[in-house]
């Protein structure tokens, strides 16, 4: 029984990669079809490794592509179509992560980093303005002799 179970669990990883799907039937309305194709790029194929449904051969991707076409034909707006899928599959299905407390760090992190970085650059310039930092220590006797030697070398 055990080996069968292990095999089954292994197959568990295999089952989502389903057989090649049927061929897409584009919409008659060219404008709607363009919207559909664009939306396909924003929806994640749930059984693939990170691709959009537009870039996948999986059967579920095909189903979702047709669903998008159906909903657009029914008059849904782009946002409504995405929301429809979001309600049923959660955040994961959207390639653009929604802005909610779970993703604040994601969306606001980079701009915050830019601000902090900008501040650091600003402070760096401010610190540089203080002349004290730039004054070098006077030369020691050994260094003075070395300098003379070097300068002497360049004379023709």
């Amino acid at each position: 029984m055990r080996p069968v179970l292990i095999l089954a669990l292994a197959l568990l990883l295999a089952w989502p990669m389903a057989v090649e799907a049927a061929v897409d039937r584009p919409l008659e309305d060219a404008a709607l079809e363009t919207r559909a194709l664009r939306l396909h790029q924003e929806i994640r194929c749930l059984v693939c490794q990170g691709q959009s449904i537009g870039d996948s051969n999986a059967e579920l991707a095909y189903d979702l592509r047709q669903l998008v076409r159906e909903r657009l034909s029914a008059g849904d707006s782009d946002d409504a179509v995405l929301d429809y899928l979001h309600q049923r599959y959660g955040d994961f299905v959207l390639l653009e992560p929604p802005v909610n407390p779970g993703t604040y760090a994601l969306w606001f992190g980079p701009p915050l980093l830019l601000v902090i970085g900008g501040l650091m650059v600003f402070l760096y310039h401010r610190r540089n303005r203080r002349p004290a930092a730039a004054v070098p220590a006077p030369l020691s006797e050994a260094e003075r002799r070395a300098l003379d030697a070097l300068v002497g070398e360049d004379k023709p």
Partner: protein
Amino acid sequence: MSDATGSSGEPNRADAAAPPPRSLLFRLRFVIPVLVFAALAIIFAFQLGRQDDEHSRDLPSALLDRPMPDFALQALPGWSVGLTDEDIRAAGISMVNVFASWCGPCRVEHPIWVEYAKQPDAVPVFGLNYKDAPENATDWLKKLGDPYKQIGADQDGRAGIEWGVYGVPETFVIDKEGRIVLKHVGVMTREDLDKKILPLIAKLKG
């Protein structure tokens, strides 16, 4: 500024001249990268450890604690009734199992359902036959047994999409108000049933 050939001799005078005492805040900046890395390393180690758990990659259901979706499915050939949400609601606490004849793991878990259905305290289990040719499904059930109270044939997968199904097998637990309270992705083992599902059902029963 310094010789091109460099030497391992005495350090440059400018460096040797005692720098003004650096504030703690200044020094603190240099520590940030290593702290960020440490946090990341901990998270990576944690995630690595979870890799053995095949359920760590399951998608949580977006419908938890929400009423089950409306749907109406035809019957399989030879069955007298199909399946609608009303049927499930009417049954009170129940389970919905998504299966297909082409699905290997479904075959592995099916005996669990057949066994469970025989238990006297079993709640009704409804079947959602997902993207299947009806004849294949009926053959499959005739061969392996039919534990389901009612079965709906979801040939185009639309009902599955309503339920947030993304593969087979999947199992949902429904409470008496018709809300989805749990989703189990993948094979239902006897252990899953005993440790996760049945205690939940007992709790739902009150």
